Every structure is written in structure tokens, then in C-alpha cells.
């Protein structure tokens, strides 16, 4: 048994030693910088940092104040709007019908006045009242209540007034009878009469528009039905104003997280953290460098932060700078060159030890 145990111990020691040597530094995976499906968290800056403009434009607070004129005016355009193409889309109706009704209400109001004037009889007044109530004011229940309340109130006043008039001027009896009636009708009836007339006006408009659309071809109608776009405001950029200084794309390009990781990995490979850095806390170094579109380093990398006066700190900063120089050229997506043309990398050796 002793022989077996000692042999076993020896074998295990051997296996552990081999494991320590072979497994001590597992080779990091060699990943090619291929992004099969770029996943990124899109921040709001992507939209907020809208920088579309012309790279060659001079720097100016505002574009040159050339008066805006709209060229390419389409001939025989039937539609109104900023669109370059004549779209048969009807202008989207603005959903503000109720304020318009109140605004249009006053003009019809004088019309009813002449019609009641021929009515000399006081009995005619109650007759129009029931008609508007079922026609228009079915839905709003509070309004009829309000109308009923004012009606009894003026009515007692009406008999009193004629009595006073009768007492004062008995000869001109028909004239005062007709005069007080219209003011009563205005206060009590005008709101009723305005409302029945509004729907009529709307109907007239609708019939007019439908008759217009009938003239158009069926295809245009279908296209107009299908097209839900607002007819106005969607035109191409036709301003003659000089473009502001900016990038070629609409939004500011940004490296995705994986692309950043790729650049990080490329630099990390060449970074030899200086040994003997006891207080690694203070060794944060930020290096700024410019890259050419081919990924080559342009100019010398600059140490932006860190690399203080101490000897270790300076060596750390130098090591970071050397890492950036040694790893050039970098393999980065060329279509986002604007994002990585100027890079700042923060070196933090804290995890190293």
C-alpha cells in the first residue's frame, strides 16, 4: 500500500505541476474584429447630436442670410405644400372644428333677426323654441336646462314691460310690442338658431369637396386614400441657404460598444503595465491620438491626463503612449471614421495587480 500511495502522490504532484504550467496562462481568444450583428444601446444623443451639414462650409454662427426662395416649382401643380412632387394627398384636416364653430357663430346671428321681425305675435316665440331643442341639443343635456331656466325668467318680465309701455304710450301699441320681442329673442333664441345653421354649412363644405374629388381619376382617389402623409411640409431640402458646417451624415456617428471593445482589445495587447507600480491607484493615464482613415496613427499621441511628476507615473504614462504607438494601425470600421478620427483612451492599470 505504501508503494501505491507514494506513486499516486508523485503522479498527482506531477499532474498538478503540469497543470500549473500549461493552464497558468490560457491564451486569450483571438477574435477577428467582425461584427456579425452590431448591437448597441442607442442614446438620445444620437438624435440630439444632429450635425448634418457641409464639411467645406465656413464656420459661421448662422448660415449666410440669403433670402430663401423655393426653386423647382412644379408646373401645373394642383396640390399645395412644400413637396417637390405633386402628391394628390388631400391636406390633412386640422382637428379644430369646435373653436371654428364658435368663431363662425356670430355672422349667422344677424340673419335670424330679420326672420323673427315679421312675427308680431308673442305666441310665435314659444313655437321656434321646441324645434331647435330636439334637432341640435339632444346630446348636451345641460343646455336645455339652461334655456328652460332663462325662458321663464324673461317671460314674467315681458308682460310687465308691455304693461308699462301700454300705460305710457297707448297709441303706438304695435310698435313697442315688436321692439321688445327681438331683444328677448336675441338673448333666448339666438344660441338655438346658430347651432342648427352650423351643420348645414359643414354639409355644404363636404358636398363641395366630394364634388371636387369626383372630378379626379379613381387612381388619384385611391392614392389619396392610401397616402396618409401630410401633404405639406415633407419636401426635399430645397432651401438655398448655405449649409452649416457639419458632418456628412445626419446624426453624429458613434462607435458601438463592440467596436469600442475591439479598439480596446487592440490597444490592450500592446500595453505593458510598468512593473513595480506600488500605488496603482494614481496611475490612470488618458492618451489622446488622431487616426487616419486607414487606421494609421496621425501625429504623436498626447497624454491628456495622468502621468504626473512622479517617476512611476511618468513611466506609466510613457507605457500607455508606447502601447498606442506600437499597436497602430488599428482595424476599425471605416464608415465611422468620423467617430474614431480623434480618440481618447483612459488607461487604468488598477486591475493589473
Amino acid at each position: 500500500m505504501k508503494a501505491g500511495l507514494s506513486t499516486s502522490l508523485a503522479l498527482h504532484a506531477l499532474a498538478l505541476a503540469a497543470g500549473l504550467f500549461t493552464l497558468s496562462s490560457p491564451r486569450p481568444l483571438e477574435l477577428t474584429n467582425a461584427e456579425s450583428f452590431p448591437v448597441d444601446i442607442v442614446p438620445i444623443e444620437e438624435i440630439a447630436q444632429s450635425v448634418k451639414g457641409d464639411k467645406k462650409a465656413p464656420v459661421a454662427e448662422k448660415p449666410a442670410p440669403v433670402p430663401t426662395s423655393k426653386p423647382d416649382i412644379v408646373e401645373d401643380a394642383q396640390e399645395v405644400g412644400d413637396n417637390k412632387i405633386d402628391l394628390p394627398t388631400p391636406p390633412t384636416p386640422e382637428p379644430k372644428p369646435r373653436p371654428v364653430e364658435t368663431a363662425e357663430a356670430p355672422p349667422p346671428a344677424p340673419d335670424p333677426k330679420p326672420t323673427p321681425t315679421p312675427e308680431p305675435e308673442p305666441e310665435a316665440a314659444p313655437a321656434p323654441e321646441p324645434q331647435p331643442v330636439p334637432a341640435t341639443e339632444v346630446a348636451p343635456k345641460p343646455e336645455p336646462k339652461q334655456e328652460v331656466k332663462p325662458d321663464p325668467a324673461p317671460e314674467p318680465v315681458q308682460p310687465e314691460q308691455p304693461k308699462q309701455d301700454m300705460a305710457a304710450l297707448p297709441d303706438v301699441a304695435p310698435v313697442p310690442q315688436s321692439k321688445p320681442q327681438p331683444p328677448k329673442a336675441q338673448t333666448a333664441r339666438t344660441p338655438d338658431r346658430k347651432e342648427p345653421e352650423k351643420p348645414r354649412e359643414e354639409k355644404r363644405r363636404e358636398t363641395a369637396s366630394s364634388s371636387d374629388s369626383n372630378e379626379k381619376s379613381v387612381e388619384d382617389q385611391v392614392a389619396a386614400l392610401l397616402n396618409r402623409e401630410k401633404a405639406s411640409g415633407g419636401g426635399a431640402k430645397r432651401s438655398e441657404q448655405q449649409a452649416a458646417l457639419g458632418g456628412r451624415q445626419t446624426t453624429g456617428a458613434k462607435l458601438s460598444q463592440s467596436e469600442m471593445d475591439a479598439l480596446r482589445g487592440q490597444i490592450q495587447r500592446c500595453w505593458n503595465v510598468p512593473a513595480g507600480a506600488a500605488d496603482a491607484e494614481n496611475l490612470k493615464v488618458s492618451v489622446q491620438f488622431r487616426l487616419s482613415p486607414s487606421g494609421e496613427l496621425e501625429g504623436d499621441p498626447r497624454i491628456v491626463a495622468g502621468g504626473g511628476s512622479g517617476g512611476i507615473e511618468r513611466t506609466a504614462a510613457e507605457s500607455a503612449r508606447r502601447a498606442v504607438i506600437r499597436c497602430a494601425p488599428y482595424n476599425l470600421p471605416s464608415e465611422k471614421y468620423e467617430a474614431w478620427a480623434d480618440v481618447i483612451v483612459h488607461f487604468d492599470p488598477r486591475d493589473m495587480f
Partner: protein
Amino acid sequence: MEQMALTAPGGDHSLWALFWQASWVVKLVMLGLLGASVWTWAIIIDKTLAFNRMRAALNRFEEVFWSGQSLEELYRSLSERKTAGMGSIFVAAMREWKKSFEKGVKSPISLQNRIDKAMDLALTREMEALESRMGFLATVGSAGPFIGLFGTVVGIMTSFQSIAASGQTNLAVVAPGIAEALLATAIGLLAAIPATIAYNKLTADAAKLGLRMEGFADEFSAILSRQIDEKVPVRAAA
């Protein structure tokens, strides 16, 4: 201007670092499994050697036994030194035979019974010696992965707790803890796989050796029975 933070490239991922970073429960599991592995291999080596020795001894004994040498001489030569396997069965049977004849045989049937019992006892003892410590191999083979898995689960639990405490979900933070926890399962499997294979192999070998010895015991019993039948009536008559 693109800005990014660059942390130092990975820490120490050696086996020793993995072991040293583990929590004490996982360390205990790993050490226990390592000990089990050492003991397993000790048993495997020991048993393999013992079985080889036994096989050689059986071959040698059979050669001598069937060489036509007289049983008395063989007994005299064997009883003086340590015997194993068939030799001890033979010695046990011969000792009983001799003792019985020194005191005079009363009944041939009881003598036969006693000899058979002595041989059975010797055979059982031999088998016991052959199969000793095999239970440990079976236990390690079946329980090793579970013990390793226990260490892994505890390790992953603690590493997830520390991840939750640190508030970082970076893969570089998650991976070392899981790797360290998986080391426990690896060691468990490392101990269990050889143990299971060796247990099956050694059990089969022991059964084969036991069968051979049993066969010899039966054969020898038959020979002795013939001898008793030849000798006892003569003595009774005399």
C-alpha cells in the same frame, strides 16, 4: 471624440490563482476531492500490483501442484513461509487434514466437512484481501461528481453574490468566479472517472481470481475426499 476607459488586460488566471480566489467551502471541496483522487490512485496502483502478484502466485502454485510432487512435501515447504491465494487454501486444508489424522479420524464425513470449511474460510479471507478498499473506489466514482458539483454551485452562488454586491455585470467580472467554481467539478470528475473505470476493471479481475481459487478448492476437496475414502477404511480396518 471617442472616449473609452481601458482597464488592465486580465489578471492572473493560473490554477493556483483560481484555487486561491475560491471561498473556503469550495477550497475544502477541492482539497477533499484532491485527497480522494490521491487515495484512489494509490488503491488502483496497489490493487493492480497485488492482482498481478496473485496471478503469478496462482500460476506458480498450479505448476508446482500438478507437477506430481507429493502433497506432504509441498505442505512442508509451503507451511514454512507466507502463502497467498491457492497456497493458503492448500495449507489450510492440509493443516486440518494433518490435525485430524494426528488425533485419529472418527468419521470420514465430518473430516471432509471440516476440510471444506477450512478451505472456504481460507478462500473467503483471500477474497477479502483481494477486494479490500474497492468500496472506496466505488464511492469516489459515484459521489465524486456530486461533491464537485456541490463545490461549483456554492462557488457560483458566492461569485454571483459578489457580482451583485459590486454592481458590475461585465463578463470579465463574471467569468473568473464561474471558472473557479467549475474547477471544483473538474477535480470531482478527475477523481471519479478513473475510480469508476478502475472499480469495474478490478472487480472483474477479482471475480476471475476468486473463481480460479474456488475451482482449485473444489478440485482439492475432491482429491482429499478420494484420499479419505482410501485411507480411513484402511485405518478403521487396522
